[in-house]
């Protein structure tokens, strides 16, 4: 089964301020980017399911055509650096996106 990492050149996470975590997915081709936007491949329900969140903790999903990118932003489980935080920079929260399966009819 093909997965998101097959069609993306970058899949990353990072803090967007101490209270939010933002994911960037940069697609290798304009065609796959447009297909992903058209099919709403990255959507709030998906992000909530992958990360065990409630949908209201998915703050936004934004497409950025100049970078062939889709960005998803979630509420951090704990603020950066709070006691119990696990990733101060938020740079290692991307992995569940890597193996996201693509639809069987994805060209």
């Amino acid at each position, binding site marked *: 089964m093909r997965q998101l990492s097959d069609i993306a*050149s*970058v899949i990353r996470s*990072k*803090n*967007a*301020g*101490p*209270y*939010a975590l*933002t994911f*960037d997915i*940069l697609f290798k081709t304009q065609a796959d980017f447009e297909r992903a936007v058209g099919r709403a491949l990255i959507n709030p329900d998906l992000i909530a399911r*992958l*990360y*065990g*969140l409630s949908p209201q903790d998915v*703050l*936004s999903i*934004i497409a*950025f055509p*100049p*970078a*062939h*990118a889709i*960005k998803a*932003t979630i*509420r*951090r*489980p*704990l*603020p*950066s*650096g*709070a*006691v*119990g*935080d*696990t*990733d*101060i*920079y938020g740079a*290692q*929260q991307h*992995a*569940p996106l890597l193996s996201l399966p693509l639809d069987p009819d994805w060209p």
Partner: protein
Amino acid sequence: MADLPPFRVLSPTAILGYGFPSASFEAGLAMKPDVIAVDAGSTDPGPFYLGAGLSFTDRSAVKRDLRHILTAGRARDIPVLIGSAGGAGARPHLDWCTQIIREIAAEEKLTGALAVIGADMDKALLSQALAAGQITALPPGPEAQADLIDSSSHIVAQMGEAPLIAALDAGARVIVAGRCYDPSVFAAEPIRRGYPPGLALHMGKILECAAIAAQPGSGSDCMIGTLDAEGFTVEPTAPERACTVASVAAHTLYEKSDPFHLPGPGGALDLTATQFEQRGARKVRVTGTTFIPAQEHIVKLEGARRTGFRTVSIAGARSPDFIAGLDDILQGVRDRVADNFADMQDGAAQLLFKVYGRDAVMGALEPLRHQPAHEVGIVIEAVAPSQDQADTICGFARATLLHFGYPGRVSTAGNLAFPYSPSDFKAGAVYEFSLYHLLHGADPATLFPLEMSRLEAPA
């Protein structure tokens, strides 16, 4: 605006102290920059550095970078701007960086006007502003609280380009500024000279991370931006790197929740009409970014407060039955520690376990928690009102876990492999962000005091 000649800004490194190859810096200087600017800061490393008043970069590394930058800037008599000095940009950080600059000035016999711009906020002023409804949350962050302001050890505001322009107008050739909105140090001199603020600030936004926006990316290599009235180009100075539309556009997304609207002091960058265009193999041209001035002046506040002291112990485990039963075992240890120490029962102290190989990296976000690896690393962590209390709880928890008897235990000599003796480490004071909010309506001319002196003055 046709009379605006190309204006070049050299960014040597992503963070002052991260370094840059000498050859790259020389190549950048050969392109005749009009300004050298560097961003020294970030909240990325967490609340500790702001709260404790310490730099997250190494003094010798910062001094090495500054020596190259200052001697080059003074030799050419071009402005040198350093933003978010010392990392977090509060007074101790600013003094630390200024002291390094004075040492270099004495050693290299540098002369010229030096501006030092503070970014510390007065707690009394902030308490009044809070009461007047002038401090607002940055969603999803919480509302500000008076007691968190009062108990903060340092509070700074991010300055825009205005205080830097005031320093340049006063004749400063070297500016060391406290906490800055990252693009400000790159955009101040071009905005002062009449270049479009939207383009100057967007160029600054790319330059602030130096060659991270190139391919291959690097946080310790140089980038140069060339600005005119219609747009700007960016290129790395090292020949083995290139800017591509993908690398530059991707950087616009970095650490931001909305890449089209980037708010800063005094207004927001609007990227809805921005075009990225490849120029040759190694340059990217950017046009169309505009600046939308805000109705009122808004600055972002950052504060940190101490919440306790931490002690950690690091251990590993390889027994399959121990790893399989870990949740129950750790709960058993928690119960023993809570039973033994009253400060655990009243919530003053906390005991935490991070299980690497299972869910220590992602915590509550980890979907594969049920598939632990064949070995796990366990960080036992105690946070308590004093270092002694943290030491006590961590040590007791470590000893309890080492010898904890669980059903079916075969390996009865000890449950943990310690890589170090001593096994426990005092991690010192623990801080949290106490403020990450917006301050409305404050006058930027009075928030950020300017002190002028001379590089050649005695320290």
